[in-house]
């Protein structure tokens, strides 16, 4: 009984329009030959070509990508372990504290976590820079991966593992040959989510950064404070394009694997 009433369609359409309008405007204006928002100077890609010459920007992009890759991978490992513990281990000593630490970063304002991590790094006298941002990001985004993987694990049919063990497969091998392949889509979703979050983070990165580790968000932010700049439009458009391509390919993959939707729903489920 899926009646698509006018109210439903209307609210959905309005909502989507609201969500996409600013992005669409941004993309359009990145091709604006004129500097000013008020003047449309015709289509041009001059801001993109200027971007290629902007060494500092490219540097930041490279740093950001590397950090995102590292933290996403580390967070996926940690998050999967945490999800396994939460779903499979029932009650154990210190569970309340553990789940508290897992779920808190989901809602904790980033200024607090950023400050706390920086103070830690200062206290143990570590040089701040690439690695401190990576550690900070890993800590922050592990919880998101946990939620996604946990959601998948909850719907996982444990009799498959029992069947495997019954057929002679020891527990670790069972996990690797049966469980892991079947929850892999959730792990991939989790990784992608983690990657995006790290790529996008401004606050925590600002707190924990050091010389030579200016991430793209930090650079964009510092430029944006001074007002709209068309080069920024170009950078943003490129990032949006990359993300859109990533999501589109992930959705296609999910279509073939039936697991992606569950993971995305897991994202919703938090």
């Amino acid at each position: 009984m899926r009646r698509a009433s006018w109210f439903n369609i209307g609210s959905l359409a309005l909502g989507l329009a609201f969500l996409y309008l600013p992005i669409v405007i941004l993309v359009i204006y990145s091709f604006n030959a004129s500097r000013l928002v008020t003047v449309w100077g015709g289509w041009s890609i001059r801001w993109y070509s200027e971007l290629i010459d902007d060494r500092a920007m490219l540097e930041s992009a490279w740093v950001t990508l590397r950090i995102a890759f590292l933290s996403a991978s580390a967070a996926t490992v940690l998050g999967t372990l945490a999800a396994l513990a939460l779903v499979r281990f029932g009650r154990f000593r210190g569970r309340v504290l553990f789940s508290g630490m897992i779920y808190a970063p989901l809602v904790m304002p980033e200024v607090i976590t950023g400050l706390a991590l920086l103070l830690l790094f200062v206290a143990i006298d570590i040089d701040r820079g690439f690695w401190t941002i990576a550690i900070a990001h890993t800590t922050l985004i592990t919880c998101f991966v946990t939620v996604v993987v946990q959601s998948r694990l909850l719907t996982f049919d444990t009799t498959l593992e029992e069947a495997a063990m019954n057929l002679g497969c020891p527990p670790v091998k069972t996990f690797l040959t049966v469980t892991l392949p079947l929850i892999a889509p959730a792990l991939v979703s989790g990784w992608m989510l983690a990657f995006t979050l790290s790529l996008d983070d401004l606050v925590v990165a600002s707190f924990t950064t050091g010389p030579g580790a200016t991430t793209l968000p930090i650079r964009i932010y510092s430029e944006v404070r001074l007002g709209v700049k068309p080069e920024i439009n170009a950078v943003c458009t490129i990032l949006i394009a990359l993300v859109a391509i990533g999501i589109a390919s992930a959705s296609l993959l999910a279509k073939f694997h039936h697991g992606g939707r569950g993971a995305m729903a897991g994202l919703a489920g938090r």
Partner: protein
Amino acid sequence: MSKLEAQRSWGERLILLVPYLWLAAFFLVPFLIVLKISLSHTAVAQPPYTPVFDVAAGWSGVIRALSTLSLENYALLGSDSLYLASYIKSLEIAAGSTLLLLLIGFPIAYGMARAPRRWQPVVFVLVVLPFWTSFLIRIYAWINILQRDGLLNQLLLALRIVDEPPAWLSTDTAVYIGIVYSYLPFMVLPIYATLEKMDETLLEAAADLGCPNWKAFWLVTLPLSRPGMVAGALLCFIPIVGEFVIPDLLGSSQTMMIGQTLWAEFFANRDWPVASAVAVVLLCLLVVPIVIYEQVQTRDLARGG
């Protein structure tokens, strides 16, 4: 204890220990440090606070350092009305935007859930996609629109709704717009997840018992979607209180939200102890909602997600 059980718990312990230790080291300990710093004094030094626990000074050094801790930073927070105004403003904006998010997000989630099954994945991806693009970018996009000579004013002038282009930026309105825009997925998705799981036959049963559509919505759908609304509300309210980027880019510098205050204390004034005190008080304010959120999460986990 049989060999099987002993082997299992060793492997289990490892699975648990790795994330546990990481989080304890990089999440728990930092908070304790924030607490300690909040009790310290500013110093023109590197790091800019005293006392600094010097392990080499031994136990007596620790005792000496502990004795110099004080609550003067908290006293400062209490005495200067700037901070109080900042906290109140943050709570105000958070509450207001959460309400707006509920009002705007629910119809969207409802529309998503009632869409034909074939379209659901597509709609889902469409709603989630903006979330995956950069947060910063999306806020920046609003600057494009909201600035004095931006597109909104151009539109308003063209439609002759106003004579003078009003200032949208650096106002609370802009902050509200920015917050609602950024946090919309956080509200829509939990509600959608709950609505999607809802058993449609309940509505059919209501209709069969003579209940008109709007009433069925009020009596059946709305109460059943409450867990989603609660989750969404918490997921939005708590982080919004400490929001920094949106008020910084879109809001005024007159009354700052607490996130901005913390940032200013830290980066502009180089006053780490006061910044830490601000953080601790903010955390205390949020402890109750955070604990409620955790309970909701574990309850959902026990119920099987």
